[in-house]
């Protein structure tokens, strides 16, 4: 075991570069997923005929598949039908597809948690259906959604490690490159990457818990 060699500034910088890619991928994916998830969730909440059923079927299929399979799919299978994405965007696409399904369930749950009386009250004051959803239901539902979305983001940060399979230069991938050079670096690298993931995820989980209690 060679801690001083493993933790040379070059290696640490390399790990931090990886962590940056990890966070970048997670952040872009969660934003895109929120938009798509919100559309899917709203369609199902409003029970739009046909569309609602379709959205439900797609969501159920996607969230019952392993993310790893979806990563393989966007990187190896999409080119076969003419869609060629870079490693980075394959990873973003896979995470977004998977997380949209997850977030749409959270968003739908958040919307459903608002009592029916709120809708009735909104309508009876003369607001339209759309206005009631936009001004009355969504603002209240958002508060209920934030903690589970933060938890989902934690899961996403951990899941980005799977994209090492398509050689995305994220934290796990970079750590593996460093310990591949020297067996003495293996344990220091496992400690370092475990520590980095842990700090990010633990901090965010605590934030999610705090938001949950401050909401109640």
């Amino acid at each position, binding site marked *: 075991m060679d801690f001083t060699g493993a933790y040379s500034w070059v290696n640490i910088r390399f790990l931090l570069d990886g962590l940056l890619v990890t966070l970048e991928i997670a952040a872009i994916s969660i934003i895109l997923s929120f938009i798509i998830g919100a559309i899917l969730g709203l369609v199902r909440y409003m029970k739009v005929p046909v569309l609602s059923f379709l959205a439900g079927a797609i969501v*159920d*299929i996607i969230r*019952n*598949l*392993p*993310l*790893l*399979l979806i990563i*393989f*799919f966007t990187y*190896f*299978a999409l*080119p*076969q*039908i003419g869609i060629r994405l870079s490693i980075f965007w394959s990873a973003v696409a896979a995470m977004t597809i998977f997380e949209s399904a997850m977030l749409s369930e959270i968003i739908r749950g958040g919307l459903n948690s608002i009592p029916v009386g709120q809708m009735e009250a909104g309508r009876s004051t003369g607001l339209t259906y759309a206005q009631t959803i936009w001004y009355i239901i969504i603002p209240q539902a958002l508060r209920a959604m934030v903690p589970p979305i933060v938890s989902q983001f*934690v899961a996403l940060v*951990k*899941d980005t*490690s*799977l994209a*090492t*399979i398509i050689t995305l230069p994220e934290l*796990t991938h970079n750590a*593996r490159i460093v*310990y591949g050079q020297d*067996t003495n670096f*293996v*344990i220091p690298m*496992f400690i370092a*990457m*475990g520590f980095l*993931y*842990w700090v990010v*995820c*633990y901090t965010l*989980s605590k934030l999610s818990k705090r938001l949950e209690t401050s909401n109640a």
Partner: protein
Amino acid sequence: MIEILTNYNDVLIEGFINTLIASLIALVISLIIGTLLGISQVSTNKLLAGIANFYVQLFLNIPLLIIVLFFYVVFPMFFVGVNGFTAGIIGLTIYTSAFIAETVRAGILGVPNGQMEAGLSTGLTYGDTMRYIILPQAIKIVIPPLGNQFINLVKNSSVLAMVAGLDLMYYGDLIASETFNTFDTYIIVALFYLIITLPLTYLMQYVERRLAAND
């Protein structure tokens, strides 16, 4: 697509069975460890609660892949070598135990405080109250989230493919690289996963509704 199914049905089925075996073994062991950890977390014994909390907070916040790689790469440096299948199962068990512990802890805390007080005041010990009063009620709360944990476990077992774990995803990848027909292969692999996860999802939704209706 049909060709892949007919030419590779034996490997696909082997992978499917390995995925099921890995998930079931990990489920059974992590149910035991997770329940013990969950009970320990709410224990009045500070040391026990501290150790359980440490375990849970550690493994909830580290990617599953890192844990599996640890057993695949680091473990053999000191102890015996483990194959990908075993390393995968160990990793899945350690990781899932933390999630089950959280579920069990939430279930126990979900039982009103008065139940514990009532149990103790009738003369039962802490252990007996836990066993006969709290846990039976907590089980009702934890069944739906435990079902979801099992679904996650099946999906997470695909991580075995990254350490040559002979699971469904691993063989799927193998078939894809042999046939060059990635698109169809992954669709078939997806269908095999859905055979396990979709019925479980709907079963859990049904159970959840039934339990809610009983309240």
